[in-house]
């Protein structure tokens, strides 16, 4: 969880390589903040007023909380070589359930109504997560497609719950989740707490290792005695819960549930955050601190565009350019070329995760088409991966 030495000039090769996975994202984040500060010095100023912190940076934290939370769940899913496209729809469903429940009680302003709404929403998300996990872990359907089902149907379900209306609620306790302050915004505190908890649970126990091993090769993990299915299932449930919580934040921030637009494209933002943070979509390794940086980059970028007075719709162009740049900088091939330029040869073995080294296997090594990655197929490390793809996928 410690940050990366951002100003490495020429220390030991080992340290450079260790840091370099996060180096570029951090550089990008710092560059964004500096660019903002240069243009508008008020950008970095933070002031305390009525026990609240105010300032652009605080806004970034507050608005980035749902993305961070979803990206957190997504990180673990991607670490198992999966992907969860349904999180945006799940977030919309959570908001819809919470708001309709609160609005439907006799006293919509009471704290009891909020508790009921939140519990109901999270329980439903749990069920949705179980559903995704069931499709992926038990039926063995490719994650991208299994979660596409809920992504398509989910918004329909959310509309069904709200009856196609935008449900507004007036409840101070509910507002706290997304718009409240405990010096810092409550939402980012929740998100950071979740991040801390996950870091603690996965990195201080073997769980993180197990998740990564499932991502590298589910079949081998199973043969080694791991309960691959249980792990995969758990990961999807956790992702859905994160999405639900993020959905509550989003709807609480505006005190309304909009089944159509709440959390729209947030799954894309979350995936981008995870990828920018250095987690490989091929599974097998993940970086929680990277995800944090990635989520902050995405949100800072959005805020930058707003504060620079560029039309907000153009955000997308910037987002795509940054994504392409970061992805290119992280692509094993490009890094390899860089390395050859700087003649720092023996760096390779340090990054010896199976899928990682497979990427740099050689000039003719196959790329990673997503569908193939997403299926629990064999690791494409050797050219013998031709035959058993479908055979392994079914067991």
């Amino acid at each position, binding site marked *: 969880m410690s940050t990366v030495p951002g100003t490495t000039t020429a220390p030991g090769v080992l340290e450079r390589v260790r840091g370099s996975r996060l180096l570029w994202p951090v550089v990008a984040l710092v560059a964004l903040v500096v660019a903002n500060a240069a243009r508008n010095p008020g950008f970095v100023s933070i002031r305390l007023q009525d026990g609240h912190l105010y300032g652009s940076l605080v806004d970034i934290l507050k608005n980035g909380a749902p993305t961070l939370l979803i990206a957190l769940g997504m990180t673990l899913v991607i670490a198992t070589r999966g*992907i969860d496209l349904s999180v945006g729809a799940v977030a919309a469903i959570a908001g819809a359930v919470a708001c309709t429940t609160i609005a439907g009680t006799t006293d919509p302003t009471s704290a009891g109504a909020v508790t009921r709404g939140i519990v109901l929403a999270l329980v439903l998300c749990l069920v949705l997560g179980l559903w995704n996990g069931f*499709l992926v872990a038990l*039926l*063995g359907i*490719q994650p*991208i*497609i*299994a979660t*596409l*089902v809920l*992504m*398509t*149907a*989910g*918004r*329909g379900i959310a*509309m*069904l719950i709200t009856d*196609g209306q935008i449900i507004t609620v007036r409840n101070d306790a509910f507002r706290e989740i997304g718009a409240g302050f405990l010096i810092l915004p409550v939402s980012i505190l929740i998100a950071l707490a979740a991040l801390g908890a996950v870091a603690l649970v996965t990195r201080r126990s073997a769980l993180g290792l197990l998740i990564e091993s499932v991502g590298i090769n589910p079949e081998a993990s199973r043969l080694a005695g791991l309960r691959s299915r249980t792990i995969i299932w758990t990961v999807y449930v956790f992702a859905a819960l994160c999405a639900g919580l993020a959905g509550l934040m989003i709807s609480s921030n505006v005190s309304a549930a909009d089944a159509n637009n709440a959390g729209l494209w947030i799954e*894309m933002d979350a*995936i*981008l955050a995870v*990828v920018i943070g250095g987690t490989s*979509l*091929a599974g097998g390794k993940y970086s929680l601190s990277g995800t944090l940086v990635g989520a902050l980059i995405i949100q800072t970028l959005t805020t930058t565009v707003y504060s620079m007075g560029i*039309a907000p*719709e*153009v*955000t*997308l*162009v*910037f*987002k*795509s*350019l940054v*994504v*392409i740049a970061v*992805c*290119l900088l992280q*692509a094993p*091939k*490009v890094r390899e070329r860089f390395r050859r330029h700087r003649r720092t040869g023996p760096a390779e073995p340090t990054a010896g995760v199976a899928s990682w080294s497979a990427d740099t296997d050689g000039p003719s*090594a196959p*790329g*990673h*088409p*997503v*569908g*193939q*990655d997403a*299926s629990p*197929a064999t690791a494409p490390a050797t*050219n013998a*991966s*031709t*035959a058993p*793809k*479908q055979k392994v*996928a*079914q067991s």
Partner: protein
Amino acid sequence: MTTTAPTRSDATGRRSATRRPIVPGRVLPVVATFALFVLLFGVGSVRYEGFASGQVFANLFIDNAFLIVLAVGMTFVILTGGIDLSVGAVVALSTMVAATALKAGLPAPLVILLVLAIGTGLGVLMGLVIHHFEIQPFIVTLAGMFLARGLCFVIGVESISIKDPFFRALATGTIELPGGVVITWSVVIALAIVAAAVWVLHRTRFGRTVYAIGGSESSATLMGLAVGRVKVAAYGISGLCASIAGLLFSVYMLSGYGLHAVGMELDAIASVVIGGTLLSGGVGYVLGSLLGVLVLGVIQTLISFQGTLSSWWTKIAIGTLLLLFIVMQRLFMRRTS
């Protein structure tokens, strides 16, 4: 995969895409989709008056011509084992470019060429990045989607209407078929593209390479096939199809707008999957994707005939169907292997 298909169905299997004999195996999903389509259409004909007419059937094509073209492009990409999330945004960009260029007074043929060039260029670019930098197609095309959507808004945030006489003529012009059924030129274009895609996939070396890459990219490389070129070209084709779909869409809507076709890539992917193409690549048919689009269209028609159902039921129905088909695919694959 087709080229190395096991023994007996090899000769017939290749021909099956056009004639569809009852070959158990890889054609089964397509047959199932066809059966589902007939079933849904039959249910509609029994339940609603005036449903079982040639015009309702023709309208399925008229209202979904752009989606058919999109699904064709998507089939190529998915057959290679990739995915293209950018197509919806490219459709929007195409409508926007077309509307703006026409408004600026450029002649229609030039505008069409410009749009096609932009779409194909974007596709090829994404393909090059995917192949040469070995970044996952999912991420690259996601970035492409953001880029294309963003470019729409760079051009303009308002909806621009199209007043060009050629586009108007294409939009209002109809062809009368025997039996009083009327179709538009968009349908003809879409079906021509389907036919061309079938030919390319099953009658050319390029098409066989597409299947081979999807079956196993490393094997295809070892066999000495032009993996890189074909993969990049598949994304190029998808981009080209997306821009053609964009032109058809701008004819259909007679306007250009950055928020056109939001989420259409999902419809395209859903049609391809419902049409029996495996997302892991190597297995599937363009005709299946066409049937997939028709199934989606029939569901929409059913819901609009019912009248009391809200539009969000469409989404739920598509999701359910998607589920049905992937579960069926799983069971089917388990049995054959």
